[in-house]
């Protein structure tokens, strides 16, 4: 069993992200995020619509995982794009757009939590409707339960650990960019990630044990 897991799960991050809906599918021949943002900065404000189409879902996912509130998350996404318009002149040529937008998103989230007390994450309605490759109904139900536990375990983590795991696992933000976002070294990001995953694992298995009992 362990040997199988070892063989299967050793693969680079991007392949994991490709399987999620939140990955930003950018055709290589398409105009890049950076070029779009440069156009917005130069005054072509309508081009922000293209960036919205590329990023509003990932941003919404990011905020939902942090806040557990759907309506509030939609408002926060709107706020991020408002701030892009407002601070478009501060966008640097050498910067990477995804890093910049998540930097803004983290600020927006921090402002949100300053004004509103963090809430316990609500369990998503569609958790039990996740399509799965498991052939049997009993296996599907067990997996849905496991996902519900994982959702709950993630919701109990401190905000920074939730941000770190969400950005890395669901938004394909690499360690180098995370280091810039969290204003620390790459080594420090890995240490934090290690601790966050450790904490998540501990809480997840604890919940599983409680369920089994």
């Amino acid at each position, binding site marked *: *069993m*362990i040997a199988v*897991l*070892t063989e299967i*799960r*050793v*693969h*680079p*991050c991007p392949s*994991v992200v490709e*399987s*999620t*809906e*939140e990955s930003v599918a950018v055709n290589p021949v398409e105009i890049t995020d950076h070029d779009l943002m440069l156009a917005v900065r130069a*005054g072509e*404000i*309508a081009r*922000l*619509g293209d960036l*919205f189409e590329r990023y*509003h*879902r990932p941003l*919404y*996912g990011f905020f*939902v995982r942090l806040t557990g509130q*759907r309506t509030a*998350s*939609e408002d926060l*996404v*709107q706020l991020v*794009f*408002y701030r892009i*318009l407002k601070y478009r002149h501060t966008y640097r040529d050498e910067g990477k757009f995804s890093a910049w937008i998540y930097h803004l998103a983290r600020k927006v989230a921090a402002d949100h939590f300053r004004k509103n007390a963090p809430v316990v994450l609500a369990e*998503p309605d*569609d*958790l039990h409707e*996740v399509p799965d490759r498991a052939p049997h109904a009993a296996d599907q139900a067990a*997996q849905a339960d*496991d*996902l519900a*536990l*994982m*959702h709950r375990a*993630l919701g109990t983590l401190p905000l920074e650990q939730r941000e770190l*795991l969400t950005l890395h*696992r*669901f938004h394909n933000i690499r360690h180098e960019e995370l280091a810039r976002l969290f204003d620390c070294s790459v080594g420090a990001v*890995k240490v934090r*990630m*290690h601790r966050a*995953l450790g904490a*998540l*694992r501990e809480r*997840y*298995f604890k919940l599983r044990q409680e369920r089994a009992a």
Partner: protein
Amino acid sequence: MNCQRVQETFIDYQAGTLTAAESAAVREHLKTCLTCQREWAGWQETLLQLDRLPTEEPSERLRTNFYAMLDTHVRQAREPSPFALMRNRLDRFFENLVPTRPALQFAFSAVLLVAGVIVGARYLQPAATAPVVTDPATQSQLAELQQKVDSMSQLVAYSLAQQQPANTRLQQIAATLARGDADAKTLAGLVSTLAFDPSTNVRLSALEALYAHADRPLVRQGVLASLPREGSPLVQLAMIDFLTSVRDRDAAPAFEALTRDPAIDVAVRDAAQRALVQL
């Protein structure tokens, strides 16, 4: 590799960012270490469940709100501000006013310059640097006032010099005599001494010193101005001799005044009479 080191590399091992040698070392360790196998399995299970968490979709409300905001900003960007409108109008006004072709611009400038010079020459008088007084009565009053101010300033200057004893003042005059060449300031000092010094001897010495510069109008005018206020007959006589020797015709009215003044010493009046004849 020990267990702690292996577990620390789980993130990179899982991400495939370890070197081939490091990956092989971790794999070898996992084959034999049950503790690390359990840890790794726990990691794998956690990551598997985490990555399987479903993604939520935003409602249509988000898109509607966003495009409403974007439309507002696009409209605002297209509508220039009132300030910009005003500026555009001003720019257009000046553009219409001034010709666009360089040759015409040059001609326009030249016409403006010539017109300016003509208008200036015709209508603008140069500003007077000082008020011109044409009334004779006022002129004489001004001259009198000027004289008073001059004598007052001399008096003040001399009063400061008075702090020294008479013999020191005499020595200064002797030093002036010895120097031979004297500038206007030194001569003005001598004239002041002649006019205001309380010591007769000092005044006489000053007059003696002034003899060497009798050809200068400043000296002659100084002696002449000092004559009416002189009280000592000795000095009065010396002054009359001085003015007679330089043939100063301007001294005639002063001499006449002396001859008519009964308060003046007889010898002085006689000397003034003689001087008048000589002049």
